[in-house]
C-alpha cells in the first residue's frame, strides 16, 4: 500500500477551500444560513400570533426542519462534481501524473470542500448564536452548539455521499442527476417508505426494527440526534416512548453519523483506486 502524504492532501484541500472563498460560495451559503436562522428564531412562532425569540428548543426544532432540507442539498451541490468535474474538464489526468495518489486527491478534495461547508455553517449559524446569546442561558447555548455540531456532521455525511457519486458518475450531468436523486431519496422518500411500510403492516411486523432503520438515513440520524437532546422537543415529537434507549445516546448517534461520513468516502477511494 502506498503511503499517505498529508502535505499533498493539504495542498489540494487548500485550493478547494480558497476557490470557494474566492467565488463567494462560502459567503453566500453563510448568509443563507444566517438569514433563515434569524427568520426562524424571530418569526418562527408567528403562526401562534407571537413575534420575537421565544425559546431555544422551539428555535432548534424549527431549524432542524430547515437544515434537514437545506444542508444535504448544499453538500450534494458542493461535492457532486469533485472528481467527475476534473475528469470531464481534462485536468484529472494532469493531476494524476503528479506525485500524488488518488487517495490523497480524494481526501484533499473532501477536506477542502468540508472546510468550506463547515466554515459556512459555523459562520452562518454562529452569527445567529452570537445575536441570540444575550437571551440564552449557558445550557441553551450548549444546545445550540450541539445543533451546529450535528448540522456539520449532516453536511459532511452528504458531502461524503456526493464525492462518492462524483467518482462513480461518468459525466457531470449524470453526477448531478444522481445527487438530486440522492437528496430526493434521503430527504423526501425514505421516511415515506418507512411510514408506508408501517401503515401497510399496521405495525404488526418488524415494528421493533423501524427505529434502527432510521439509522440508514443520515438525515434521520440528524433529526433524532437533535430531538433527543432537547426535552421540550422530545415531548413535541412524541418519539421518546417508541425509540429504544440505546439509540437515543448522542454518542451512539454521533458514531453512526461518523460512519456515514467515513463509509461513502471509503467506497469512493476504493472505486477511484481501481
Amino acid at each position, binding site marked *: 500500500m502506498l503511503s499517505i502524504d498529508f*502535505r499533498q492532501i493539504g*495542498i489540494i484541500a487548500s*485550493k478547494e477551500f480558497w476557490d470557494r472563498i474566492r467565488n463567494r460560495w462560502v459567503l453566500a451559503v453563510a448568509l443563507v444560513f444566517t438569514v433563515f436562522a434569524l427568520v426562524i428564531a424571530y418569526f418562527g412562532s408567528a403562526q401562534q400570533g407571537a413575534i420575537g425569540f421565544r425559546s431555544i428548543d422551539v428555535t432548534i426544532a424549527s431549524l432542524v426542519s430547515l437544515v434537514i432540507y437545506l444542508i444535504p442539498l448544499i453538500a450534494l451541490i458542493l461535492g457532486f462534481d469533485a472528481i467527475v468535474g476534473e475528469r470531464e474538464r*481534462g*485536468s484529472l*489526468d*494532469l493531476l494524476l501524473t503528479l*506525485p500524488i495518489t488518488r487517495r490523497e486527491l480524494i481526501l484533499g478534495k473532501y477536506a477542502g470542500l468540508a472546510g468550506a461547508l463547515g466554515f459556512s455553517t459555523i459562520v452562518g449559524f454562529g452569527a445567529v448564536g452570537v445575536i441570540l446569546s444575550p437571551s440564552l442561558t449557558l445550557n441553551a447555548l450548549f444546545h445550540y452548539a450541539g445543533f451546529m455540531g450535528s448540522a456539520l456532521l449532516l453536511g459532511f455525511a452528504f458531502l461524503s455521499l456526493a464525492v462518492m457519486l462524483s467518482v462513480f458518475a461518468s459525466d457531470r450531468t449524470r453526477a448531478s442527476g444522481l445527487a438530486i436523486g440522492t437528496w430526493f431519496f434521503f430527504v423526501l422518500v425514505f421516511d415515506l417508505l418507512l411510514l408506508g411500510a408501517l401503515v401497510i403492516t399496521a405495525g404488526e411486523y418488524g415494528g421493533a426494527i423501524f427505529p434502527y432503520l432510521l439509522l440508514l438515513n443520515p438525515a434521520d440520524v440528524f433529526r433524532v440526534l437533535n430531538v433527543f437532546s432537547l426535552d421540550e422537543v422530545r415531548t413535541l415529537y412524541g418519539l421518546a416512548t417508541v425509540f429504544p434507549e440505546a439509540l437515543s445516546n448522542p454518542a451512539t448517534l454521533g458514531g453512526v453519523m461518523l460512519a456515514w461520513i467515513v463509509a461513502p468516502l471509503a467506497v469512493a477511494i476504493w472505486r477511484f483506486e481501481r
Partner: protein
Amino acid sequence: MASTIVEAHGVTKNFGSIQAVKGIDLSIAPGELFGLIGHNGAGKSTLFKMMLGLIPITSGQIHLDGEPISGPRFRETRRKIGYLPENVVLYDNLTGLETLHFFADLKAVARRECAGLLDKVGLTAAAGRRVREYSKGMRQRLGFAQALLGTPRLLFLDEPTTGLDPGAIRDFYRILRELKNDGVTMVLTSHILAEIQERVDRLAIMEDGRIRATGTVQALREAMNLPLTLEIAGGAGLGEQVARVLEGLAIEAIEESGSLLHIRLSRDAKMPALTRLATLGETLRDLHVREPSLEDVFFGYRA
C-alpha cells in the same frame, strides 16, 4: 546513467474484449527526442497514458528511469517527469502565476522557479491575469511551463503545439532544443508530421495497437524504399532531354509543372540518374533531391 530512460516490454491493454495495445516493446534513450505517431485509434494515447501511469497495464511492464511509474518509489519517479496534455485544461479562476504555484507545491518545487518559467514561455506580462482570460495558445504555453516545473528529466508532450501560432511553435521547438542540449528526454505525439520530421531523433509509427516501425526518419524512409523526387529547373525542351538520358532507369514518373520537372525514381536509381543528368551540362539551371516526407513514410507503412 542507464542506457534507456523509457523501457516497455510486452505491454498490452485490454478494454473489455477490445485490445487497444498489443504487445509493445519500446526503448527510449536518455536525451532522445522521440516521436510517437499514428492515426486516431492507433493506440498511442493509450500507450502514453500507460507510460504516465494514468491507466493500468493489462500485461507487460513499463519502467521510467528504471522504476515502474506506479511502484513504491512513484513520487520520486513522477518528480522526474513533466506532462503536457493535449488541450491542456487548467483552472480558470487562478492566475497564471497561481496556477504554477499550485503545481509547484504538488511537485515540491520552490515557488520562486515559477516566474522564470513564465518568462521562458513568454507569459510574464500575463502572469497576474486569470486563466479564463487566456487564449488557447496562452493556455498551452502555461501548460508547457507547468510541465517544465522541477526541471524534469523526462517530458511527455501530447500534441504540444495545438493552438499555437507559428511564432509560438518556433519558440516551443527552440525550448525543446535547449532542453535536449540539457539532456532532457522528450516523448511527443503529433498529427502535424511535417512539423516533427526534422525535429525528432527517432519515432515510432503505431497502427492498430502495435508499433509498425521504429527508427530515425531517414532509416524509416530507407526501410520503406519509397521513391525519391528530383526537382529540376532548366531551359526549353528539358523534359524530352531528361527523358532521353534517364531511359532504362527505374523512373516511376516524370511530371512537368511550370519550369520545374519532378522525377520520381527509386532510391537505387538516384546515383545513376544524377550521373546521367550531369551530362546535360548547363541545360540544368537547378536540381534538388527531395526525400519522401514523413507523411509519405507514414502512409507507406499504413498501405
